[in-house]
Structures are given as C-alpha cells and as structure tokens.
C-alpha cells in the first residue's frame, strides 16, 4: 500500500543527496569569517525547515484521522512526527556544533531557530509517553492525534513568540548574509533543501511500509490464534 513508487523515489533521493553533497563541498563559497564549519548551514537549515513542515504535516494528517476515523492516517501522522523529532534533534546537534565552532559556546540563546527547536523538541518528546501510556489502540490513536494537532498549531506560534523575544536583544549570529544569498549559495541551499525533503519522504514511506507489514503479520497471527481456540 505504501510502497508504490518507492524505488524511483529512493533513487531520486540518493541522486539529490549526492548532488547536494558535491555542491556543498566543491561549489559553495567558503565563508570568510567562519570558514569550513559554516557549511553546516546547508544541513542545519534544511533540516529545520523539513522538520517543521513535518510537524505541521503530522498535525494535518491527525486532523484527517479524526475526521475520517481511518487509522492509517494516524500511522502516517505518527511516522511523520517520529521522523521530524529525529530531525529536530539533528537541528539541535548541528546548531550546537556550529555555535561551538563559530562562537565558542555549545549553546547560544540568541539564535531564535535553535531556541524554538529546543522548546518544540521538548514538547514533542512527550508524544511517546502520552501515546504509549494509553492501552486501548483506538483511544491511543485519537489522543495522539489531538496532541499532534495542538502541537502542530503551537509550532508556528512558538516561532513567532521566540523570534519576537529575541529581536530586541541580539542580532542573529548563525544567520546568513541578512537574507539575500549569493547565487552559488542559493543554488546549493535549494538543492540541499530538496535533498532533505526527499530524504524525509523516503524515510517516511520506508517506515510506514515496514510498520504496515508488521501490523498485518500481527493481525494474521491473532486470527490464527482465535481460530485455534474455536476449533479446539
């Protein structure tokens, strides 16, 4: 069900990833101040963007789940959130590396994206205990969807609030040239963004397929067990 078109997608992902890496290493200009480390930007920012979109997409899929009652939407929402959390942790990690390399500290509060992600990841980490402390499967799915919707609506509000709070105090340290990027950077950035997005979708489909298969297996096992009880 989920594996339609998977192979071309996977191939596209690998190709784009390779292209992106090539561009990052050989094509994009070297930053005068920060040196080679600045190239982490091409991982950090696309990861952030894709992760955010993933959280919001998870919320939208949760809405679809509640309205249709179809549990496959819940599974899609869960996997989207799951991968986005991993990417979110990646954002924090790459942000920390970048901060250390260019600013000397492992953490900076002046970077609104990083700070927002800290809050968002802390919030979404509660998704797992919430989900798995509810035993009934349908209720589990429903409550998870409610959380996904609330958290998905929260993410943009949080970003706005954090950015507004930091706007006064410090200029952004990890940002780029104030908005406009030179051509080589822009191209590299866009390709990296595309690669990250494709990677997300590929992983999403991969995990969905594997979960779906294991669920089918469980269902068949259960049916078999029931039949044995009835006949004996």
């Amino acid at each position, binding site marked *: 069900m989920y594996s339609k078109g998977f192979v071309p997608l996977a191939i596209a992902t690998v190709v784009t990833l390779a292209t992106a890496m090539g561009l990052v290493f050989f094509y994009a200009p070297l930053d005068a101040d920060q040196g080679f480390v600045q190239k982490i930007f091409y991982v950090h920012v696309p990861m952030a963007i894709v992760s955010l979109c993933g959280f919001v997409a998870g919320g939208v899929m949760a809405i679809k789940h*509640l309205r249709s009652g179809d549990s496959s939407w819940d599974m899609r929402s869960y996997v989207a959130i799951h991968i986005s959390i991993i990417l979110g942790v990646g954002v924090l990690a790459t942000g920390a590396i970048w901060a250390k390399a260019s600013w000397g500290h492992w953490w900076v509060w002046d970077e609104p994206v990083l700070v927002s992600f800290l*809050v*968002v990841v*802390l*919030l979404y*980490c*509660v998704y797992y*205990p*919430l989900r798995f*402390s*509810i035993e*009934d499967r*349908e*209720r589990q799915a*429903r*409550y998870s*969807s*409610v*959380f996904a*919707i*609330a*958290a998905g*609506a*929260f993410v943009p*509000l*949080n970003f*706005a*609030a*954090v950015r*507004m*709070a930091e706007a006064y105090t410090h200029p952004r340290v990890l940002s780029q040239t104030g908005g406009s990027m030179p051509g080589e950077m822009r191209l590299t950035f866009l390709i990296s963004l595309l690669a990250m997005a494709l990677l997300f979708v590929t992983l999403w489909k991969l995990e969905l397929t594997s979960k779906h298969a294991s669920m089918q297996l469980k269902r068949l096992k259960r049916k078999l067990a029931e039949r044995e009880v009835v006949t004996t």
Partner: protein
Amino acid sequence: MIAAAGAILRKDLRLELRTKESVPAMTLFTLTVYVLFHFGLDRDSLDGELAAGVLWVTLLLAAVIGVSRLFAAEREQGGIDALLLAPVDRTSLFLAKGAALFLFLVAVEVVAVPAFGLLLLGPGLGGALPELLLILALGDIGIAAVGALVAALAAETRARELIAPLLLLPLLVPVLIACAQATEPFLRPDQGPEDLGRWLTLLTLYDVVFVLLSVAVFDYLLED
C-alpha cells in the same frame, strides 16, 4: 449547551468552595516559590525583566497544579462516567472546565500578585494596574484553554501526573514570553508601556487559536 456548561461550572465551583483543595494549594505554592526565588537568586528585590520572569514562571507552575486537579473530582468522586453519560456536548465540558480553571487562576492571582509586590518587587505595582490586569486576563485565558485541553488529554493516561506538566509547560512558552515581555516595562523603576500592543496581539492570537482548537478537538477526548 451554555446551560449545561453553566451547570458543570457551578458544580465545580461549589465543590471547590466546599473542599478548598485547588485554590489554596495553588496560592500557597506561589508564596513558597517566591521564597525559593529569594534564596535561589539571593536577592531582596527584583525589578524589570527579572521581576516579570519570576512572577510569570511562578504563576505558570501554579497553573500546573491546577491543571492536574482539574478532573480530580470526576476521577475520585463522581466518576467521569457521570459526565459521559449525560447528554452534554463535549464543548460544554471544555467551556466549563476552562472557565473553572480561569476563575481559579484569578482567585490565586488576587493573592499572589500583591504578595509578589510585597515580597519581591522593588518598584511599586500601583501605577500600571489596568494594563497589568489586561495582561493577566489574556494570559489566564490562554493558560485556561490549554490547561483544560492538557487536563483532558492526560486525564485517562496511566502516568497522568507526569504527562500533564510536561505537556503543559512547553505549550505555554509563548504565553510566558508574551506576558513576561509585556509586564516587564511596568515593573521597572521608570515605568512605561513599551510595545504593549505587539505582545497583546500575540497573546490574543494564541488565545484565539487555542480556544478554537480545543473546542474543535474536545469531542474526540474523554470517550470510549
């Protein structure tokens, strides 16, 4: 629907008046936290950003207590079944619980804010009262809406005392930011509103989003 919400709210208020469980505990908690901050920060008086931060963090932590207790009466006494068996819209339930939490917060703040002025605040509170009240009101609406939602989400999970605070506090970060930033100018020696408008706008946006969202989504909770 409003009638049913009113009935539930009246019942919750009556229960609280009789048992006096949530509000006194929340109030006492804020006073204790003020003392902790005094010792922790080693300061006799605060002003400006620090004051605003301490005040609002304390109120948020008190809200966590209120949220954990929001469905306690149902769980411990009446049984949540009684609510579920009544032909009552889940939206009415949300309005009632949200309103109850709002009123509890207001009751706590009636003591906690003057106490803050007494114990920890350097400059006086007096001059900016109407603006402060507005910030408190908008902040409380946001806390109440999200609090009721989180209380319902956590109500029937096994680890509810753990999950409720962990869910609530990150979700309230925008409220904390907006309220602390909005309050800060009024707690400085040289008082004066700065950019109050943008913070109030953020707060209002947050309140609208979460009230509407909770109303829409509450139907899917507390059943089955």
